[in-house]
Structures are given as structure tokens and as C-alpha cells.
């Protein structure tokens, strides 16, 4: 069962990372919107070590506003960036949408 629907606002957790992961540093702690459901797959933290008990999670395409990602972003306000995130890295956004 998926935790997030298209249109949900989600925040990427600021968790400790070790050795190998695919959660870009520039997304951690940032808030975006779910724009696409991606299939369930082994999470990279387990797949990278070929764990037989590897955890499978739903993935999401999350769209961020560029100006939310980069301090002093000088491009257009409507510029966005989309990236794929495993469910375990996401929590419901708490702050008020702007």
C-alpha cells in the first residue's frame, strides 16, 4: 500500500547516510510534490550489497521548485527539478504550502 498520492507534498528526511545511497544531498530536508508513482523496487541501500533480505519500497517522482533547492537561484520561479525517491526517505510535509 502506497503512503503518498499524486499531488501530496512530501519532505525528504534528513537522515544519516553511509557508504552508498541514491538520495541526493541537495534534496534532503527539502519539500516537493509527488507527481508520479514509480514501481516498487529494492531500495539502493540494500540492492548495492545484494542483500537477500533486501527491502522493497514504492518509488515516487518528486518535483521540487529550483528556488527551494538552491540558495540564490536566479532562474525563473517556475523552474522545477524532478527526481525519484524511495518511500522510506519521504515524510508528509508539515509546513504550509506557499
Amino acid at each position, binding site marked *: 500500500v502506497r503512503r503518498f498520492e499524486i499531488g501530496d507534498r512530501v519532505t525528504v528526511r534528513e537522515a544519516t*547516510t*553511509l*557508504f*552508498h*545511497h541514491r538520495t*541526493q*544531498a*541537495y534534496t534532503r530536508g527539502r519539500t516537493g510534490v509527488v507527481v508520479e508513482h514509480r514501481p516498487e523496487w*529494492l531500495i*539502493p541501500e540494500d*540492492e*548495492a*550489497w*545484494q542483500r537477500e533480505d533486501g527491502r522493497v519500497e514504492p518509488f515516487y517522482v518528486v518535483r521540487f521548485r529550483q528556488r527551494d*533547492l*538552491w540558495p540564490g537561484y536566479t532562474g525563473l520561479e517556475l523552474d522545477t527539478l524532478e527526481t525519484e525517491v524511495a518511500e522510506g526517505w519521504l515524510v508528509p510535509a508539515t509546513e504550509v504550502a506557499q
Partner: protein
Amino acid sequence: MPSPSDLDALQRQVRRLAPEPAARLDSPYWISNELYAALRHVLHDVGGQPDAPVAYEDKEEADWELRTYVLCEVLAWRGVWNAEMRRRAENDLGETLYLGLPYYARWITVAAKMLVDKGLISVSELADRIDDVRARMEAGS
């Protein structure tokens, strides 16, 4: 067998390849949490790092590159590894090798390393084979 001057030239080139650090580290006695976070940063996660534009080169794959791609896929198909293990192994090469090798040379390097890690080939078996091929090429066949 390299001559002493060959060895000297090799070691000088290796030293020149070491990344030029803004802050030189030499096994310090202690480090801050901030430095540890930076040291833990995964090599391929470059988004947001200051850099200069590089020229885009529209290049077709050479035969060895396509063969490397197929070899790595077949190793995955046989269950020996997967693409995420390859990416981890590429990061684990360290910055000098990661940035120093051509893209598919990085792939074939970590594929060989993984086969050695898993005990499927030995490192001397592989080295002997490379020497055989070199000897054959130098003989011009």
C-alpha cells in the same frame, strides 16, 4: 620489468594524479563532525558542487565499450551482481580513479574487481591473462 627510471617516472605521474586538496589531510588525529560528513559524502552525488562548464562531445561507443556494457549486463543476468553494486563499486574506487578513468573503463575495472572479490577469478590469473594479451599484441598478431 620496469627500469628504475621507468619506476621513477611512474611514481611521479601517480603523485601528480593525486587530487589537489583545498585542505590537505594526512590521517589527522581527530576530525570535526562537519568534516566527517563531507568525507562521507558519496562521490557520484555532485549536484550543487561549484564547477565550470565542460564541452559536450557527441561520441559513439567504441567496440570495447559496447562489449563492456554487454559483459556487465550478462554478469547481472547471471545473478553475479546488479547495477547498484556496480555504482557502489565505482564510487568506492575513490576520486582519482573515478574521475581519471573513461566511463566504460570504470565499468570494466569494477567488474574485474567484483569477480576477484567474489573469488570467481584470482587477481594473478587476471594479471597473467593481461600479460598474455599484451605479449600477443606486441608480437603483432
